[in-house]
């Protein structure tokens, strides 16, 4: 074999090797794309598997909880007007966010938000997703920042444990997930949109009815009191602030009207002993501070 034919053979070999490599790459590419398509199919299966798993209140996503909460908040604000006092709302937001930071859910979908309501009715309510309301009537009765912090911590406790979503009737939870379906679609056609909206309406009705009319099960109220004492202590608030507030409510004449707080919460007498037992269990607990009482008085003076 002369030098020329050796070079030709080498070139042919190189071309064959390159072609082989290219074929191999093409094969690999085809295989990768095949796997990707397979993965898409598997992903779709997983979507359906996930959809089938959704059956209880805890299966609402954080984003769905936020949308439920927005509408619950809108219905509450439709009944009770917002108190538009920027300084007061800022103060309530600071106290509320301080205790929320010590809860199990310091980070929540759109952050924690607190709003004063312009009504003399004594009440506090929490919409899912961290939108919390306190009435002017209740603010007037708070003796100090500790009491306000513990009342807001009680409401944070309801949200952190998803009590609002727990109040949705089982049939409405089932209808919600059935109407949403198993496909990963974000934009509904008219027929499905009507069905999902009807399910949404059912969910809202259950939650608003509980918050405004029926109240939570007593077990959940006591649980929220325990959370309030714990979050308050973790933040540095004297948890006895809750017991102090509850004592001011014993024998209150507003209780006769059976509205708001009195309608939706257990009697204060029944809560005081339990709250005290929880405080005793957590000893030693933080003490009140004069600096906080002072800023509380200055912040809520507008509504007193």
């Amino acid at each position, binding site marked *: 074999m002369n030098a020329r034919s050796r070079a030709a053979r080498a070139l042919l070999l190189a071309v064959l090797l390159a072609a082989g490599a290219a074929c191999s790459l093409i094969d690999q590419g085809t295989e990768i794309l095949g796997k990707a398509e397979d993965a898409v199919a598997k*992903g779709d299966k997983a979507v359906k598997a996930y959809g089938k798993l959704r059956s209880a209140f805890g299966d609402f996503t954080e984003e769905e909880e936020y949308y439920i909460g927005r509408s619950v908040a809108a219905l509450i*604000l439709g009944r009770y007007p917002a108190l538009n006092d920027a300084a007061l709302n800022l103060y309530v937001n*600071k106290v509320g966010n301080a205790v929320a930071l010590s809860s199990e859910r310091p980070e929540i979908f759109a952050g924690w938000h607190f709003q004063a309501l312009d009504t003399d009715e004594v009440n506090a309510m929490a919409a899912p997703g961290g939108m919390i309301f306190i009435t002017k009537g209740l603010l007037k009765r708070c003796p100090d920042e500790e009491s306000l912090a513990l009342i807001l911590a009680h409401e944070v406790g309801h949200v952190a444990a998803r009590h609002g979503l727990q109040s949705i009737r089982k049939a409405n939870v089932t209808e919600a997930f059935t109407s949403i379906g198993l496909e990963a679609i974000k934009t509904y056609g008219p027929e499905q949109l009507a069905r999902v909206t009807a399910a949404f309406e059912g969910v809202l009705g259950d939650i608003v009815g509980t918050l405004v009319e029926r109240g939570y099960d007593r077990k959940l109220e006591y649980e929220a009191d325990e959370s309030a004492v714990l979050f308050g202590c973790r933040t540095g608030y004297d948890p006895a602030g809750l017991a102090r507030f509850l004592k001011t409510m014993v024998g209150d004449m507003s209780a006769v009207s059976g509205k708001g707080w009195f309608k939706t919460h257990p009697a204060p007498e029944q809560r005081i002993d339990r709250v005290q037992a929880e405080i005793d269990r957590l000893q030693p607990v933080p003490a009140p501070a004069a600096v*906080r009482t002072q800023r509380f008085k200055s912040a809520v003076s507008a509504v007193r």
Partner: protein
Amino acid sequence: MKHPRKAVLAAGVLAVFCLAAAADVLVVKIQSTQIRAQAQFFAPVVAGLKAGDALTQIGVSGAWIQVRTAAGLSGWIHQSAVEVPRYALAAAAGGTRTQATASEAALAGKGFNKQVEENFRTGHAEADYASVDRMLQNKMLWSQLKEFLDQGKLGGGR
């Protein structure tokens, strides 16, 4: 290739699946958050994150998780801001090891969403969404909260 877009999409999906195959993948479940230099609120912010961002878990300290972002930055995030990808949970519950987080992004916005809220609003003039939007616009700044806690001699998760 007849469907180049489909191929690119499929390759992208595969890449995400490969990422998910790595152990300890988490996703951000809230609208926006940050990773911090230490395992505590008010520590310096390392990076901002948004819903659906994937993170790799590299450590744990109490309620705080040490994570690495897709861009390679590492820091700490509170456990309430993240979750194990839900499709991975579904696959595990089904007894299959489907490497599934690719559809995680598809889940965002599914279910009760803006479209459902808007449809509900058309029939419920009594619901005051304008006040809700005003309420949600008031965002508490970390610096404001820190000042409030310091002034009141409070701890607040620190």
